[in-house]
């Protein structure tokens, strides 16, 4: 498989750089999935809390906003790894 790919892509260096780019892309995609699930769960629970207890909505929104930002930090770390490895 690899020799065939090397034949198609040209030199081995091309293959290595292509593999690096593909790997970095996968890493970024995988790094974005986890926070996506986390934010979905977080916001879903927050909306439920606000609907059940409207007087606490301000407090819940504050916690939700900070939670989203903290969760998003994980995706940002994945993005930074992506730009440093393969962009």
């Amino acid at each position, binding site marked *: 498989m690899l020799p065939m790919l090397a034949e198609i892509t040209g030199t081995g260096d091309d293959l290595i750089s292509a593999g690096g780019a593909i790997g970095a892309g996968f890493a970024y995609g995988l790094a*974005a999935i986890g*926070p*996506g699930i986390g*934010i*979905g769960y977080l*916001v*879903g629970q927050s*909306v439920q809390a*606000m*609907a*059940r207890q*409207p*007087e*606490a*909505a*301000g*407090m819940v*929104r*504050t*916690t*939700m*906003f*900070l939670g*989203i*930002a*903290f969760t*998003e*930090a994980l*995706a*940002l*770390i994945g*993005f*930074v790894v992506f*730009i*440093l490895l393969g*962009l």
Partner: protein
Amino acid sequence: MSEAFVTRLDGPSPEREIAHDLVRRALPVAPVLVLIGAIGWGVGGALSAGYAVFLVLVNFLLAAALLTWSARISLALMMGAALVGYVLRLGLIFAAVVLVKDAGWVKLWPLGLSLIVTHVGLLFWETRYVSASLAFPGLRPAPISAPSGS
């Protein structure tokens, strides 16, 4: 029959309050990051660090604006705005970095490190000033100093 559940959230927006406070706290910190970038990587490092700080602050402000806007319409829209906003903001950061990555002044290491350090650092710093109580849902009120005569 009165509505048993809330469909929209009127009133003050704690997200906007927190995002503005994050920006206010970032302004004195940004020159330090730029200086570190300049010491480590020269002019390119300084510009890259400044650009990263700018991206993080725009990201916070955009997140707060989206949530504030959608909460005034409906809770369901707020949920959608939070999820779509996440993808949208990640896409914007991606585009903002891809557009400048080949520019001469961009150094990827200070850009990436400043992105993470600014984002996480500001958030941890902000948690010290957040009240999240029923009386003060957003930021903690400033302490009232006792009158000097008492």
